[in-house]
């Protein structure tokens, strides 16, 4: 059996650890960096882990932001999440129906708003094929686990 003093020490330890735990969660919530490191797309065909940093870093592929982020070209306003324009479902659900919803006709060439999956497939696979590097087959990106 524990003495009263030992019990008090243990109660104190519980309270101390609880406070530290709550403080860590409350004061340091998880922050998503402005420029993503990796991104996990969870879709019906299986999850896709996309290494954003490997594509942009000079140590790896060294792509320019505007190689992927477009409309308007070479403009920081294009540096937004793909899903902010390209909707992930057949319905737009409040997202733009066409590019012309936001852009003037002289700003963009293609006015059709691709679904997010079509936009990804077109862009990723075409680039991988052009450079003869990176995955092309479905199961090379989409995983079920």
């Amino acid at each position: 059996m524990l003495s009263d003093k030992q019990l008090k020490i243990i109660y104190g330890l519980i309270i101390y650890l609880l406070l530290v735990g709550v403080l860590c969660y409350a004061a340091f919530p998880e922050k998503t960096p402005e420029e993503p490191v990796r991104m996990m797309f969870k879709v019906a065909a299986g999850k896709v882990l996309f290494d954003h940093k490997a594509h942009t870093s000079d140590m790896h592929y060294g792509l320019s932001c505007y190689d992927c982020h477009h409309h308007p070209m070479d403009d920081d306003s294009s540096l937004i999440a793909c899903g902010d324009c390209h909707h992930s479902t057949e319905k737009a659900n409040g997202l733009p129906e066409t590019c012309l919803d936001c852009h003037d006709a002289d700003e963009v060439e293609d006015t059709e708003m691709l679904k997010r999956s079509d936009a990804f497939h077109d862009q990723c696979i075409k680039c991988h094929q052009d450079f003869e590097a990176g995955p092309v087959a479905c199961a090379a990106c989409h995983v079920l686990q």
Partner: protein
Amino acid sequence: MNSQKKLIVSHAPFLHNGSKISERHLHIIYAALPAILLGGLFRFGIPAIGVVCLSVSTAMLWELIMNRAMQRPVSIGDGNAALIGLLFAMLLPATAPWWLVITGTFVAIVIGKQIFGGIGGNAFNPVALSIAILMVSWKDFFDFNAMLVNYDPDFIMAYPLAALKNFGVSGIEKYSIGDFLVGRQSGGIGATFGIGLILGGAYLMIRGFIRWEISLAYLAGVFVTAQLFNLIDPVHYADPFFHIFTGYTLIGAFFLATEDSSSPVNFIPMLIYGAAGGLMTVLIRNIGAYIDGTVLAILVINLIHPLLDKIRPKAMGKVV
């Protein structure tokens, strides 16, 4: 003549050598600290500290609440609840939400241990049971690739076992065993630092706090099974060292499979128990549905433990 003296035992009163159950748990906690401090808190920072502190404190609180509810003596002083909380935190990703931690310690302490009557009565390892229930219920929170997506270390942060499961051996070519040993891999807070876990395990085995037969048989089971798979099809199945140093293997071998009340006590049963755990771990990883089968394998061997305990030495002398 000397051999006869070994059998001489004096009568009561006996001298207590001072060893207590709390001492044992305290030493297991000490042994786990290198893996947590250097592998987890150093690598994953403040979120990992939050998970560990919340897990240990709520595990002790659940124990206290159950003591009060069941009108039993306060048992948090034995250190078992703190140890369960600590081991549970070691298996979680550093970004685990607070409610997952609290739910997990509830499952471990209340459903995994107190329902069976407290320490020594549990049929399953409470930590493995809790992780398995949570993993089945909220599997996305045990997807280390998705949970640790914002960490940017200077090594490959894709979860090695997921890479193996999804892409075969070609998906793990860039990993190195050296990286796994020094904790340069993705995984649970206390499950990534191979050297820390091995040192902790070695300390516990040498001091006799855990049974070396179980740990070494478990690792041998993993090694032999993985080696057989690798020999049959080296394109799909990784080499045994990859299996030993990734996922929950080391923490399972030294800290989970060796839990007292859910593991056998005799020599042969311990070897079978450990080897069966290693075999099941690799079977689940290689041909099962889950990425890491360690906790499920440990539950399976917990299940066969009462049967294994039937294998016991013959009683000396004749029964009249």
